[in-house]
């Protein structure tokens, strides 16, 4: 019974959704304050989601109806299950087994796959282009992002998240592996399609990318999935690179610090074209992370 409560209410579903909405509100409010304007009210993101859920849902005729309805749910569940393995609020993750870091990364990119499928499924021009851009971007940042997150795992000699956190207690890997941290952070921006990597949902080119045809419930679920992915990504990077998370105060402090860094990058950079993002990732991202690994292996060899 306690596990059920854990799963549905406290660190699991409802609380996580509210946390995701709070983080999204913090992001929008911060961006607004960067642009010298007031920004949304505290309950704004809750109102947005509730409005979307009660809105009429239109299924385009040319798309496969069942797939159209299921994909948002798949995206949402992908993000929610990824949250089970991550030390939210500094507490022990709900589930933990050897190798759960890889599973979390896979579940996080499940959402982008669902967005790509949704774009391909509703055959309007904008969604088709949005889907191709989302998937190209996925394949470009996925490898360097994964390598960057596996750096701390090598140092801690294990693939289990709370094991890594335990071994690296107090060691801020941010300092020892700075390149890995930078690539991980920018990879998270690519995953969340935050500008400068928001070509897949570029408002002025392809309206709303893969989600153009979605309205009401489907759009709400995709929106929530993105918010939860933001929280999970931030906790993951904070746990691995910033010396682990012991208590809620540390959790909020570190993740909000990362959020401020993300939002300020979002405010000052122009959106990159899709070929520029792929070029940036494969030419610089991969190279930097491999150099980081080389240094790691040499250092492991010396100390072993």
């Amino acid at each position, binding site marked *: 019974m306690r596990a059920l409560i854990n799963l549905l209410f406290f660190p699991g579903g409802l609380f996580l959704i509210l946390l995701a909405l709070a983080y999204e509100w913090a992001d929008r409010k*911060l961006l607004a*304050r*960067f*642009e010298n*304007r*007031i920004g949304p009210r505290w309950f704004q993101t809750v109102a947005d989601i509730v409005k979307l859920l009660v809105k009429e849902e239109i299924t385009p005729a040319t798309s496969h109806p069942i797939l159209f309805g299921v994909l948002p749910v798949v995206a949402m569940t992908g993000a929610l299950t990824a949250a089970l393995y991550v030390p939210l609020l500094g507490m022990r993750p709900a589930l933990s087994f050897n190798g759960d870091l890889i599973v979390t990364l896979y579940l996080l990119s499940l959402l982008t796959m669902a967005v790509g499928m949704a774009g391909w499924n509703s055959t309007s021009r904008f969604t088709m282009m949005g889907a191709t851009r989302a998937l190209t971007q996925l394949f470009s940042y996925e490898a360097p992002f994964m390598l960057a997150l596996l750096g701390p795992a090598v140092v801690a000699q294990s693939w289990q998240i709370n094991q890594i956190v335990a071994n690296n207690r107090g060691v801020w890997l941010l300092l020892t592996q700075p390149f890995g941290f930078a690539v991980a952070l920018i990879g998270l921006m690519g995953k969340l399609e935050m500008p400068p990597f928001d070509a897949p949902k570029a408002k002025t080119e392809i309206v709303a990318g893969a989600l153009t045809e979605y309205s009401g419930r489907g759009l709400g679920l995709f929106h929530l999935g993105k918010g939860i992915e933001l929280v999970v990504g931030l906790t993951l990077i904070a746990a691995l690179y910033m010396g682990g998370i012991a208590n809620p105060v540390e959790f909020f402090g570190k993740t909000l610090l990362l959020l401020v860094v993300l939002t300020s990058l979002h*405010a*000052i950079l122009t959106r990159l074209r899709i070929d520029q993002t792929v070029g940036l990732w494969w030419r610089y991202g991969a190279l930097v992370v491999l150099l980081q690994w080389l240094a790691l292996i040499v250092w492991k060899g010396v100390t072993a």
Partner: protein
Amino acid sequence: MLVDIWSSFFKKPVTQRYPFERLEAPEQFRGRLVWDPSKCNGCCLCIKDCPANALELITIDKKAKQFVMRYHADRCTYCSQCVQSCRSECLRMAHDQWEPASLSRHDFVVDYGNEADIAHILEKYGTPSARATAAKTSE
């Protein structure tokens, strides 16, 4: 750009909280038209020069210079040419009335003149009717 965003982060937002703080429009602002029946001699120069057929003069008694001016606030383009053309200065644009929004079309027809004339006009003409000018399709 980084210095820009952080300096504006610590500055107070420039947003003007409109419905709660209402700043006055400048003195020169061209808001809703106001007609002063006492000075009007019925020359209709303002109606001739209006580019949007927004003014109609209904004469009740020519000699006693008793008129009712029907002003269509929704057609008016707030260009103040009528104020410029009027030789007896009985038209002016109120600089403090600039919130004409409404949920129905019928709030926009304003009848100026003394109450007796307006009541007389309303029951005679009923709902506001557009002057059937050649160029304009009637309402």
